[in-house]
């Protein structure tokens, strides 16, 4: 038994690190470092660099144009990306709909959509949650009624992340209202330019516009845009959720956040001494450090078993719960570390292009980021849902 990366894996890490140092544009790196919102163009610029290098679709097999990485390489890439302040690849196309298309899509669908995702030609968003269907996703009510070779789709989706930039949405719709709730669902790909679609921003408690409501009013969607059979949508959805959960522990981000916190706590002074030396604060930092150490090893255990062919399954739920709790704790400690500096709010700087004095800029995001990080224990299946999954599948309760 050993916890070390192989020489090849270490060489790969160096390769990734050198690539990030050379290719990540400075302005994007700086925006990420300061916690500022990226524009659609920022995302695309970076994703085009990754695409040219062949590293955009980290999880894809070679046959579809991916780099053919295993779970260990993907982990190394994520970790290095986070520590270099690279933007996270917008997951909805590359990591979410693409695996579903590969698994359940027709050859024609694969030939059409996958190359477009690889080339950043489509911006995908996720049409899952509805006002009445959150954790209980299968109770969704958006209707799709067959009309010749089209479906007429009506309903409302919500929490649609970055939907304001999207030109495509993968969407769960109810095609059979009579069937048992999971059985009546189908998986449709919808062009966001279709007549009848409107997108309305939801401003969250951090003042950000990250999520949206999407209204569908008799939208005509070709039957050819259905993935899998009619009524097979729930199978696709479940498959997708297991993909969403791997890597959701966000350990690279947690590591980066702890490093940042230590720097801050070393600089900021409390009654004349570094905040790092305040016992009550230091104690919480130490606990966060221990939690991160444990999570890293647990994550390596999951990676090793995934590498050896096991399906991560419920263990990734454990990682999600503890990883999100840790990141939330770190965001809380960072906010507290800043003291009165956490109070000012500069939305024009954080979410736009307004300038700010450099010393202010360093601290400007922490307060809002704390609020934003509340989402970590809610999205991707809330932590309570994760625990219920573990209880059911791992513990047989």
């Amino acid at each position, binding site marked *: 038994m050993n916890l070390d990366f192989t020489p090849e894996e270490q060489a790969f890490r160096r390769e990734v690190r050198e690539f990030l140092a050379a290719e990540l544009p400075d302005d994007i790196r700086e925006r990420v470092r300061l916690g500022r919102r990226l524009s659609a163009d920022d995302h695309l610029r970076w994703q085009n660099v990754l695409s040219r290098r062949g590293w955009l679709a980290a999880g894809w097999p070679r046959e579809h144009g991916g780099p053919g990485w295993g779970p260990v390489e993907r982990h190394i890439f994520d970790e290095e990306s986070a520590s270099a302040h690279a933007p996270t690849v917008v997951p909805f196309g590359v990591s979410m709909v693409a695996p579903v298309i590969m698994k359940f899509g027709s050859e024609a669908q694969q030939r059409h959509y996958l190359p477009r995702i690889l080339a950043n030609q489509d911006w995908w968003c996720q049409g899952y949650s509805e006002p009445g269907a959150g954790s209980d996703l299968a109770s969704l009510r958006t209707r799709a009624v067959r009309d010749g070779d089209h479906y007429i789709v009506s309903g409302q989706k919500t929490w649609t992340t970055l939907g304001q930039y999207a030109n495509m949405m993968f969407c769960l719709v109810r095609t059979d209202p009579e069937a048992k709730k999971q059985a009546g669902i189908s998986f449709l790909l919808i062009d966001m330019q279709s007549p009848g679609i409107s997108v309305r921003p939801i401003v969250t408690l951090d003042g950000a516009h990250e999520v949206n409501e999407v209204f569908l009013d008799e939208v005509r969607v070709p039957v050819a845009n259905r993935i899998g059979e009619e009524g097979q949508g729930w199978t696709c959805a479940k498959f997708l959720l297991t993909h969403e959960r791997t890597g959701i522990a966000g350990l690279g981000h947690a590591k980066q956040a702890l490093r940042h916190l230590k720097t801050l706590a070393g600089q900021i002074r409390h009654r004349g001494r570094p905040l790092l030396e305040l016992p009550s604060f230091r104690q919480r930092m130490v606990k966060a450090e221990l939690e991160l150490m444990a999570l890293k090893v647990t994550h390596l255990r999951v990676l090793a078993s995934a590498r050896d062919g096991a399906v991560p399954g419920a263990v990734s739920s454990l990682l999600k719960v503890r990883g999100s709790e840790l990141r939330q704790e770190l965001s809380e400690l960072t906010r507290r570390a800043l003291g009165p500096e956490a109070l000012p709010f500069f939305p024009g700087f954080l979410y736009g292009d307004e300038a700010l004095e450099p010393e202010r800029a360093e601290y400007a995001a922490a307060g809002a980021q704390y609020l934003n990080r509340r989402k970590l224990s809610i999205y991707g299946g809330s932590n309570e849902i994760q*625990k219920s999954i573990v209880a059911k599948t791992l513990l047989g309760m």
Partner: protein
Amino acid sequence: MDFSYSDEQRMLADTLERLVADSDSVGDAAPITLWHTFAELGLLQLPFAEHVGGLGGDGIDVTIVMQAFGRGLVREPYVAGLLLPGTLLARLANSAQRERWLSPLLGGEYRMTLAWQETAARYDAHAISTRARRQADGWVLDGSKQGVMAAAAADALVVTARLDDGLLGAFLVPNDSRGLARRDYTTLDDRTASDIQLTGVLLPHDARLGDDASDTLDAALALGRAALCAEAVGAMQAACDQTLAYLKERRQFGAPLAGFQVLQHRMVDMHLNLEQARSMAILAATSLERPAGERDYRVSAAKAYCGEAARFVAEQAIQLHGAMGMTEECRISHYARQLIMFDHHLGDVDHHLEIVSERLTAA
């Protein structure tokens, strides 16, 4: 990166599984009946280097042994009576001392323990006040040691003492030495321990092991701590398994307890703690050959983490068993006692958090 056992380790795990299943002694008054079986199975030689008569096992081998002991509530003093004194002997003894003390220890015919802890020093193995003075015909030891595990059954003790020149010495002290007084007692986790008074104990020159014992003592304690973490993981695993089984079997309000979400989530929290503690125990066991600073940082992190996790699992296990969990008759209470008292062996959460904290620096 590889978390799998080798073929030999799998065999070791199977052997221990059977041994532990066959020798369940919960409820008995901690009889020491397995030590000779350990010797026959090679468990006493396992953790020591081949050139001193061991089998060259590593931290993971010890982890396998200790997890099984934790699961089966085996109370034989594998840590206190073998790993701790054995490490000091294996690394410090000259060949004559090895022949006389280590060989019979590994053969199972001679029992030993390590007397390192003192009341005033709490868990600090270096801040001791027991003294060793050199005199013409050997050494004189004066001082007292607290909570010396498995001392009553030991033939000899390895005793740490401060020398006049400031070095830390380790001395071989026969249990029947003149001037050695023992107060024996049992512990809350069903083990035996003693407080020991040393008053002008005379020892020959060759009773001293090596020169300064500080670094070796740290190495021995690191191994002991990693081993205790593994034992706690084994006990946590058993406590989780047993609590889960109880929740599935016990019915209230016309339904199994396992069907209640509030209990499901609590069970999952226990499981989360178990898996994270397992990771930390692995981290400790695979860090034993690293440079001392790095080794101790990781081992302390693991001991602190496992201490918290063990307490959580123990408390939840009792709570989820309801009043049954409060009874001595119910097996869970024995695991709970062990898991709570785990924190009091070789440094508790606060002790080890402080060590981690001292090394936490601004990035």
